[in-house]
């Protein structure tokens, strides 16, 4: 390939990435410069770093190992309700952590459904608190994302490959060896990296299940440095360590990605002939049923406890819901403005710096970036007035790595598959974008936009640093309700939050794949 086709110069993407990096590093620097002499990093912080790496590794591995068979089953089976199931399986990921943890406890807690069942059978109760509890919570949050990302890998195998395999009588282990393992080798490292990064920055709420100060993550230690000692130097230092660890691990995982593309097909709808034996049918069915059971039971628990309060919710809840939707829409627009140019630049071959730039948004502590922006803003404006734009921007930065994981593989395929043809037709950049790229990538755009809206709706994030009474978002209002003993109203707000984040995700995701195969 002497003249590789570059439909759009990577300049735009590099510029956006440089902006994101400058913003994140600038915020960290602002915090570090504002610091007075602190006590530095002590044994408690080292313990937190060790625990964070341990739980993030275990959680990432467990999430991905469990996601593979589920994604495989979903990739090769067609059954009624499959699409709805796939969408519903995404729900835990977009839930605010506190809501999800209370849902999990309704099922696995001391007086939860599982323990009630066990005691009926005369069995000893299950104890969820401990490292295993943290891993269970993280698997609950992240397995759906891992499943979606891996499922996408399966869907990128062109239908022609499976047609060919069926004609050659390839099934069972041969299929695994020839198609599935090469595909997984491409997809799994990136998925591991993303889940690891999410668990690295895990905050206090999942740690409820950790049972004590042993289960302190770096993110919580940063929060404590702010709160207990007002030690900004230590907070900035911990944030830098957290970012370095995340990026090193992610860089390592992404460096493992090898293997050639499967080539391009004609984009026909996918049909599968393999795995028709009863044993593999039963196996697939079991995996899907188990995943549905594990992921949907806590969701139903949230719905059950929220429904009674839904009709008599305070006015403030509805007002904050509107604020949250506005923030979510803004953050989705900001996100696409960053992710589309960056994904094009990555697909055009500038992957290293851009991929890492994308990951930084996830690897940086939201508390540190929020505080850094606050310190910068307070010099020239009232931060209260900028609370919502800043929240939208930080949310967009946080979702950037997911959006890149979603957009990059397909963009790469489009450029590899269609680039030469477009070049031979003398198509210029904008025409290529309009006629080839955007129509083909709209499913991914919808998914990414939906994900960013959903995560933004559920995110407590930096708004707590900036909010006044008029700019409270729905998660903040839910916390306020909990802080005022109103657990029932809070459960209602949680259900509204679930419905909103899921509804927005569904609309965007569906909208993107209108007239397309899921």
């Amino acid at each position, binding site marked *: 390939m002497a003249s590789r086709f570059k439909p759009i110069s990577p300049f735009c993407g590099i510029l956006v990435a440089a902006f994101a990096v400058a913003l994140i590093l600038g915020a960290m620097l602002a915090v570090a410069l504002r610091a007075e002499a602190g006590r530095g990093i002590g044994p408690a912080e080292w313990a937190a770093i060790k625990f964070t790496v341990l739980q993030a590794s275990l959680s990432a591995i467990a999430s991905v190992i469990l996601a593979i068979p589920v994604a495989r089953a979903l990739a090769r089976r067609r059954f009624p309700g499959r699409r709805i199931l796939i969408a519903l399986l995404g729900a835990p990921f977009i839930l605010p952590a506190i809501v999800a943890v209370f849902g999990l406890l309704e099922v696995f807690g001391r007086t939860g459904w599982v323990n009630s069942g066990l005691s009926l059978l005369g069995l000893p109760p299950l104890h969820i608190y401990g490292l295993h509890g943290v891993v269970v919570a993280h698997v609950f949050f992240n397995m759906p994302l891992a499943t979606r990302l891996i499922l996408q890998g399966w869907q990128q195998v062109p239908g022609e490959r499976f047609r060919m395999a069926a004609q050659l009588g390839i099934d069972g282990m041969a299929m695994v060896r020839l198609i599935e393992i090469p595909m997984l080798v491409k997809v799994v490292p990136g998925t591991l990296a993303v889940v690891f990064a999410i668990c690295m920055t895990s905050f206090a709420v999942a740690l409820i299940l950790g*049972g*004590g100060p042993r289960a302190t993550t770096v993110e919580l230690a940063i929060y*404590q440095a702010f709160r207990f000692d007002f030690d900004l130097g230590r907070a900035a230092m911990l944030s830098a360590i957290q970012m370095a660890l995340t990026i090193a691990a992610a860089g390592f995982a992404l460096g493992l990605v090898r293997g050639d593309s499967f080539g391009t097909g004609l984009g026909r709808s996918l049909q599968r002939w393999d795995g028709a034996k009863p044993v593999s049918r039963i196996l697939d069915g079991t995996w899907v049923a188990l995943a549905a059971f594990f992921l949907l039971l806590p969701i139903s628990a949230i719905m059950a406890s929220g429904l009674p309060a839904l009709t008599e919710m305070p006015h403030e809840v509805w007002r904050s819901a509107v604020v949250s939707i506005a923030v979510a829409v803004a953050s989705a627009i900001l996100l696409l403005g960053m992710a589309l140019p960056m994904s094009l630049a990555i697909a055009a071959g500038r992957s290293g710096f851009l991929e890492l730039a994308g990951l930084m948004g996830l690897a940086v502590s939201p508390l540190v970036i929020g505080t850094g922006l606050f310190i910068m803003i*307070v010099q020239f404006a*009232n931060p209260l007035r900028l609370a919502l734009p800043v929240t939208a921007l930080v949310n967009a930065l946080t979702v950037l790595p997911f959006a890149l994981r979603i957009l990059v593989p397909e963009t790469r395929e489009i450029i590899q598959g269609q680039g030469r043809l477009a070049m031979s037709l003398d198509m210029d950049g904008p025409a290529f974008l309009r006629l080839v790229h955007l129509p083909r990538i709209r499913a991914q755009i919808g998914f990414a936009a939906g994900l960013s809206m959903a995560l933004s709706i559920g995110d407590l994030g930096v708004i707590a640093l900036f909010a*006044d009474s008029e700019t*409270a978002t729905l998660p903040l209002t839910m916390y306020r309700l909990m802080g*005022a003993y109103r657990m029932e109203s809070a459960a209602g707000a949680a259900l509204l939050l679930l419905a909103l984040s899921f509804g927005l995700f569904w609309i965007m995701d569906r909208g993107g794949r209108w007239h397309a195969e899921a």
Partner: protein
Amino acid sequence: MRYLVFVAGLMRATLAWAETPELTVYTYDSFVSDWGPGPQVEKAFEAQCGCDLKLAGVEDGAALLARIKLEGSAGDADVMLGIDTNLMAAARDTGLFAEHGLSPELDLPVSWDDDMFLPYDWGYFAFVYNADQKAPGSIRELAESDATIIIQDPRSSTPGLGLLLWVKAAYGDMAESIWEELSDNIVTVTRGWSEAYGLFLEGEADMVLSYTTSPAYHLIAEEDAGKAAAEFSEGHYMQVEVAAKLKSADQPELADRFLEFMLSEEFQSVIPTTNWMYPAVAPKGGLPAGFETLIKPSRAILMSPEEALASRDAALDEWLRALSQ
């Protein structure tokens, strides 16, 4: 023409609005919510001050002080309302706060003569449990029992810090061994009060660290007499919440008026059933019905602000050692 009149009227209204002085009070989140004291306080103060009272909410007491420190004297805040005595020494050290110059009559179980910080409400920390169960009678009894408890992390929560100082004040050098004995009672340690209380209501533990006034919420707002606070023979650590004026206030006279108003009947009578704490000045009509059912600890424990600041780091190290084993 009519249009012009309308525009002129609008402009005059805008000008009038711009001339109304604005008093900015930074406080914690739960104070400003619709069901907190905020809305009633705002209405009552605006009716007498001819000003616009702006209440800005920041997470909680510790975050509030951090915010004031971050903004320094460049910030908008005229008054800070909502830290407790455990943070007072750190707040005083910032040099950002001014003296209040008042000498009010207060109804606190302890004496008060601080020249910078004025208390507006107070309460006792306590373990809350379901009234149909048996409760231990002291911290030591709790540690020896097999009752399960949920507590908050002292590094991120004011009740968590309160318990840390409670045990330290009651047991001194023995505190670490008390924490070691307590460690098998602790189901989990949460970041803040809300998560802990929520877990307790979900039935995750027998008791939760909260306030002696918590059962009053359930009794008055939910007509549920099923919650009680356990009285401990060591005495109960207190939380006193305070406010102060900033030196950099744009509206120093309004800030003074607000601090005076804060100790008046109108403000104080709102506190019991919105903040669920005891008012710093007892309302003329007494406390709302239901408060008489609460336990009244015979011994109030409260470290002085300086003592609290001096002992918290060593106490935290003991706590971490005992609970990390």
